[in-house]
């Protein structure tokens, strides 16, 4: 009795399922060929020649392009790494300095072949020795900020010149402000 009952139930369920399936499949059938056939044909026609034609060139030219792009990025980094400025007797980064450092960091990340030496400088006021130490603190603060922005630590070195290499030797507030700086010396 049980198997018989089960069988009849299975048959009924299968019948219902096939009916449902038939009902569902009927609608997309009419649309399918119209929509899918034409675009696929076009895609194949467009892609194939492009791939066939470019691939042999890619080995040399793409490499060159990549080098050119890297070169461009490096050049951009070399020329685009702008110096930042500090307040008197301070090595804390100002907001303006942080913004410039963010730009410098992205330039450096885009040009991974470039290493950079950060030079810390001071204005002429203050003792020479103290300024050498202060210049180093400025360079260090700059370096650690760049590293925190994702520049690999191995690419950044520092040096302090204290007050030895002023940008502007004048004895004015404007000149001093220019001289309190960190410079980015890019090296390939």
């Amino acid at each position, binding site marked *: 009795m049980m198997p018989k009952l089960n069988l009849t139930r299975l048959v009924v369920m299968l019948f219902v399922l096939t009916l449902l399936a038939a009902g569902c499949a009927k609608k997309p059938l009419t649309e399918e060929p119209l929509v899918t056939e034409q675009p696929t044909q076009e895609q194949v026609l467009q892609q194939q020649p492009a791939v066939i034609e470019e691939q042999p060139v890619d080995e040399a030219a793409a490499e060159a392009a990549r080098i050119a792009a890297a070169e461009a990025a490096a050049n951009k980094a070399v020329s685009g790494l702008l110096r930042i400025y500090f307040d008197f007797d301070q090595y804390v980064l100002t907001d303006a300095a942080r913004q410039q450092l963010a730009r410098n960091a992205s330039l450096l990340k885009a040009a991974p072949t470039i290493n950079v030496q950060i030079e810390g400088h001071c204005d002429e006021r203050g003792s*020479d020795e*103290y300024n*050498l130490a202060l210049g180093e603190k400025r360079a260090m603060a700059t370096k650690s900020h760049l590293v925190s922005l994702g520049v690999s630590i191995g690419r950044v070195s*520092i040096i302090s010149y204290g007050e*030895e290499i002023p940008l502007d030797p004048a004895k004015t507030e404007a000149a001093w402000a220019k001289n309190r700086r960190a410079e980015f010396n890019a090296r390939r």
Partner: protein
Amino acid sequence: MKIVRAILAAAVLYFFYAGSAAAVRIEISAPGEQIIPLAITSLLPMGAVQAGVAEEFQQVLENDLDLSGLFDLVDPEAFLGDAQKLTLHSTQVDFGQWRMLGAEVLIKGGYRFEAGKLTVELRLYDVISRRLLTGRRYIGTLADVRRIAHTFADQILLSLTGESGPFNSRIAYISKRTGRKELYLMDVDGHQRLRLTDHRSIVLNPDFSPTRKELIFTSYDKGNPDLYRKEIYTGRESRLSLKPGLNIGGRYSPDGREVALTLSKDKNSELYLLGTDGTIHRRLTNHYGIDVDPSWSPDGHRIAFVSDRRGNPNIFIVDIHTLEVNRLTYAGKYNATPAWSPKGKRIVFARLEGSEFNLFSIRSDGSDERQLTFGPGSKEHPRWSPDGRFLIYSLDRGGEKSIWIMRADGTGARKISSKGGHDTHPAWSARW
């Protein structure tokens, strides 16, 4: 009873004697004049006249003695007959003449130049007690005239103050004469300049070994500010400390066995003691602030230095045995470049006020601060003469950087470097 009478009589006699013979007591609590009238006669030839010897000798000696501040020179115009006589023995000098001119001390001398050999005889007489204070014979060449004059000036100070002068010594300094900062050497009066380095880089902050003819300094020659050592006569040069980062402000200990300097190998500038072989003996400071500019106490137990550990740069003193740190200066907002007197009592330093430094002096216990320099221009890098009588420093005024010398009390300041040299960072050698 007889004894009592005798004692009474003796007492009466004693009082009578004491009363009649009591001397009038007078106290004189300062000399009438604090300057000694000195007559310098010119060197007389003891043979053939050699042009220039007497004049050059006179100029150097007068300059040194004037700087000493001890003397009031008697006008040579007033000199009488004895000035023209070569009297190398006190019995020959007509002291009466010199006494009449008000002189208390008298310098006489003569020279002989024969076969390339220069002999100079010099005498210092006390006019009042009519005796020889010091007599010297110097033998050298014509090129040694300046040196002879400096050496005799030292001898005069020894005789009249009990301590030799510092005139026969050298000044090391940094000059930009070639366009780059290089190390130079000159006499105390600014003559006999000599360039010692050819790094074509940046050479900084020299210091003399107290015991050898040797200098240490910082140079960027190899890219990094490393500490160099240079033997003056052989010219031999080596790197004493080349740690990554700063190797600056090297200062020999008074016994010449160690060097205090600033290293930043710990990512922060700290003071260290170095052996003369370059090995680190000891770390002296441990603070995240800047610690620079060490200067030894003459006993070699303490070091004054600059630190911003309390905010602004100020002078602190560290005991090199206990490493205990004490603050020395409180006034002013920016105090730097301490220089501890070789006599031990005072420390001279530069204070930044506005945009200009002036030199101050303070006792090593922090009391009795005095300003030594005034007027326009920035005065920095003070260093002592080996006898503690004088100070040498650099002055930045009107776009020119020059080296000046003055007495330790701030008087008698004069420029010793020549024009347009951009000369800074003087250091005074021990007696040569």
